């Protein structure tokens, strides 16, 4: 085996980790996961490609190998936090779009921008290249979600017919009120709040309710946060390379048990909800 728990087996072996033991533990986790799968396949809503400023990295071939290993049909992917010297994410957006063109059935490219760094031009370039959504990270790029520049980026994404995926986890400022303002400013926006809204989960669950313009991805979320929400408002995600597919599936399986989701609910979370969100 070449990869286990999302890591390269050779790297683990080089770090004196028993790959066989780790593989057995991953299999023991997956043995507890019995999920009905959507007929059109599982979609991972949250993957980073490239090399992040914090050292995390993931290549497109390694991501596809992880998807294959776990029977995941496709993944939304966007650049890691590597904005480049001009802060515009130009090179890494182009790299993600190019990777998706090499694996069009597997990788769904979103672009990433700093809203205050000539985002309009970056979004137009990404749209021309074939991007299908926008990723915003208010913590990494240090902006407020209700900043006029962020609202402008989301508005342009909506004009393109794109959803916008927004970091709403570790380190996030209060997200719910800013999201409410964002939706008021851009009524036709479609938002995916990452990590189950972990950074502001109770307030976000109250905000989202049945609002069909918002999904919460399950990547690195907590179980207690996820079950606050209707399954129709959730979509599966892993946050590769920060998270891994096995525990991502385990989280959905345990949430389905705790909240007594129906098989159709589970299929929705694993792919159908996001599929209807992507145009």
């Amino acid at each position, binding site marked *: 085996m070449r990869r*286990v728990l999302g890591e390269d087996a050779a790297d683990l072996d080089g770090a004196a980790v028993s790959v066989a033991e780790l593989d057995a533990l991953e299999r023991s986790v997956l043995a507890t996961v019995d999920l009905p799968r959507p007929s059109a396949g599982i979609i991972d809503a949250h993957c980073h490609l490239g090399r992040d400023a914090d050292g995390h990295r993931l290549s497109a071939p390694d991501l596809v190998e992880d998807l294959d290993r776990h029977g995941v049909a496709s993944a939304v992917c966007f650049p890691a936090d590597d904005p480049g010297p001009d802060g515009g994410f130009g090179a890494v957006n182009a790299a993600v779009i190019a990777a998706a063109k090499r694996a069009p059935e597997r990788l769904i490219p979103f672009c990433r921008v700093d809203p205050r760094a000539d985002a309009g031009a970056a979004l137009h370039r990404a749209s021309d290249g074939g991007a299908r959504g926008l990723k915003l990270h208010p913590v990494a790029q240090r902006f407020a979600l209700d900043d006029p520049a962020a609202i402008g980026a989301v508005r342009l994404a909506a004009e393109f017919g794109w959803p916008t995926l927004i970091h709403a986890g570790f380190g996030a400022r209060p997200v719910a009120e800013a999201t409410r303002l964002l939706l008021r400013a851009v009524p036709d926006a479609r938002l995916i709040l990452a990590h189950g809204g972990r950074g502001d989960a109770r307030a976000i669950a109250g905000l989202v309710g049945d609002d069909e313009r918002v999904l919460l991805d399950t990547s*690195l979320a907590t179980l*207690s946060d996820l*079950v606050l929400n209707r399954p129709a408002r959730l979509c599966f995600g892993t946050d590769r390379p920060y998270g891994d597919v096995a*525990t991502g599936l385990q989280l959905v399986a*345990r949430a389905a048990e705790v909240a007594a989701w129906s098989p159709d609910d589970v299929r929705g979370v694993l792919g159908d909800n996001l599929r209807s969100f992507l145009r």
Partner: protein
Amino acid sequence: MTRAEAVRLVAAIAQCEMALVRRDAAAGPLLAQASRAAEGLPGGDLLSAAARLARDLDLHGRDRRDRARRKATQALCRAAAIEAQARAMAGG
């Protein structure tokens, strides 16, 4: 696993997860403690393995092997956390 055991584990693992994310030297001792609390319980094998990996972990290592070991430790913690949360919410 009783609900009390599950709640204890949820709290213990949450500390481990944050220490690993923050690359805090407390991660190893916290994992050893959580592993002892999980002995004989569901998910105990995951935490035991995580604690062993954490013993010689270079939390600040930039080498890809250091990173792989740290990420594997985090994944094992996460799996144990999910299991403990589910048991706590289901009533143990």
